């Protein structure tokens, strides 16, 4: 009797709707409140510190309370200084990133797609990679002067290596089985590169570009330490020399936000290219 009822439910439309319902509710509660849990720790620490300084338990001279950092950020934003510095830093990262990424993509593609060029290029590039990039600074300053060119060069070098390695590795690891599909349909070398290799390496290329961008932000700080009069890195140095820890922390926060925003933009911009991916997590 029960079995009969169940089979009826399966065949009727109401039954099908009832069966589909759980899946729909699952989709609706897509927002997971546990995400907010991540904010708990930093906010708790900030409030504790704020309270400690306000109650006179701590001086807050070397470690300024959050309210003072926010006030400093606000002040810098009001005078427009924050924007000029941010813009300068962003511009340097952008130029260095574009140069480094283009070079990394081109050389990585060459080295990944042909054994001859790989044997020609790769040993040299691997040897250069072993040098800590900051070690180039004195040479870059001698060659390119202390202004923009040497800074951009350092950032470009930092961006280049992860992109080069990522692209070359991605091409080398393309599934032979998919390449054979291209052979069966008699694609030329160029068609094979465009229709199979390029899409196949895109996901890894995006990851390579993201780590390149991350390193770009790392190296812009180093670059701005070596005698800049503008940029968030300059704010850091200036804060140290003038004994303004609130300014240092304000600049660090600006760096964090800037890096995160740039990374998110890169992810959002490349998302349409890799949305076919069958990965565990929607977002990396």
């Amino acid at each position: 009797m029960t079995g009969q009822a169940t089979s009826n439910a399966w065949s009727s439309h109401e039954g099908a709707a009832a069966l589909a319902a759980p899946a729909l509710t699952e989709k609706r509660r897509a927002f997971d409140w546990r995400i907010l849990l991540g904010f708990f720790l930093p906010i708790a620490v900030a409030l504790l510190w704020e309270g400690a300084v306000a109650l006179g338990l701590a001086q807050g001279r070397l470690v300024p309370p959050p309210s003072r950092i926010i006030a400093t950020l606000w002040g810098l934003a009001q005078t427009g200084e924050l924007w000029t510095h941010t813009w300068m830093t962003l511009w340097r990262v952008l130029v260095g990133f574009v140069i480094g990424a283009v070079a990394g993509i081109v050389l990585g593609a060459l080295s990944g797609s042909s054994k001859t060029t790989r044997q020609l290029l790769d040993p040299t590039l691997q040897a250069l990679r072993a040098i800590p990039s900051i070690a180039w600074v004195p040479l870059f300053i001698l060659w390119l002067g202390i202004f923009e060119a040497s800074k951009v060069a350092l950032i470009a070098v930092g961006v280049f290596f992860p992109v080069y390695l990522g692209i070359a590795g991605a091409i080398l690891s393309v599934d032979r089985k998919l390449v054979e599909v291209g052979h069966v349909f008699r694609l030329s070398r160029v068609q094979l590169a465009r229709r199979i290799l390029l899409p196949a390496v895109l996901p890894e290329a995006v990851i390579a570009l993201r780590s390149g961008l991350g390193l770009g932000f790392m190296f812009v700080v180093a670059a701005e330490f070596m005698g800049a009069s503008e940029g968030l890195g300059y704010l850091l140095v200036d804060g140290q020399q003038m004994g303004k820890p609130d300014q240092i922390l304000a600049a660090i926060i600006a760096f964090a936000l800037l890096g995160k925003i740039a990374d998110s933009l890169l992810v959002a911009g490349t998302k349409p290219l890799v949305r076919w991916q069958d990965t565990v997590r929607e977002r990396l």
Partner: protein
Amino acid sequence: MLALEHLSKTYADGTRALSDINLTVHEGEIVSLIGGSGCGKTTLLRLIAGLDRASAGRIRLDDEVLTGPHPAVGIVFQEPRLLPWLSVSDNIAFGLDGVGAAEKKARVSHALSKVGLIEHADRWPRDLSGGQQQRVSIARAFVTNPKVLLLDEPFSALDAFTRASLHEHLLGLWEETRPTVVLVTHDVQEAVTLADRAIVMQPKPGRILDELPLTLSRPRDRTGLPFETSVRRILTALDHSLKAPQLQPQRERDRQAAALWW
């Protein structure tokens, strides 16, 4: 007509995968290759598809000697091998590069409806089941209207029900243009369901042991006595392919027998 003449393949590591294969497949014929694991069935298909080069012998399609991938030869691999960045319909259209947009669309949607996936046209391959993916890859091979279609155990990963329905889809597509089909299978029932002729192969080195014509009328009744008889005949031939006079130690023979009883 597809003709294999004295075809041999020895891999770089010295494995003799195929030795002196001679086989003629007539136009529109469905031939099924049966044999134990490692007797060179995949190797044979890869040679015909032009993905590997033969060590000796040649392959002729009508009056042409095949030396590489040929537009008139299509292949369905053991795995679907869909391009994950293309939608289902774009995957099917992959081989239709020189075809005009309107005709391409018509041919793709016709192939889609033939394999019963018309409502899945715009989905990603990752969102399809294994059997649906394999149907897409069959449609991708058929849509270019090849003269010769090679199928390498295309249904071996699927359950019996799905397999039976795919047999129907396959025969439905075959009926339209009647290509020459070479079907590799582990499944004797499948061979008797689909093929006009069964070729039984033998390993080490891979060669042809026996040929059995399957003259049952289509559509074939899987429950009838003629079907059973054909199945039994192939099984006997397979059995012979194991017991063939070979100076092999008993243990090695047992190991092979175990491999053959899929």
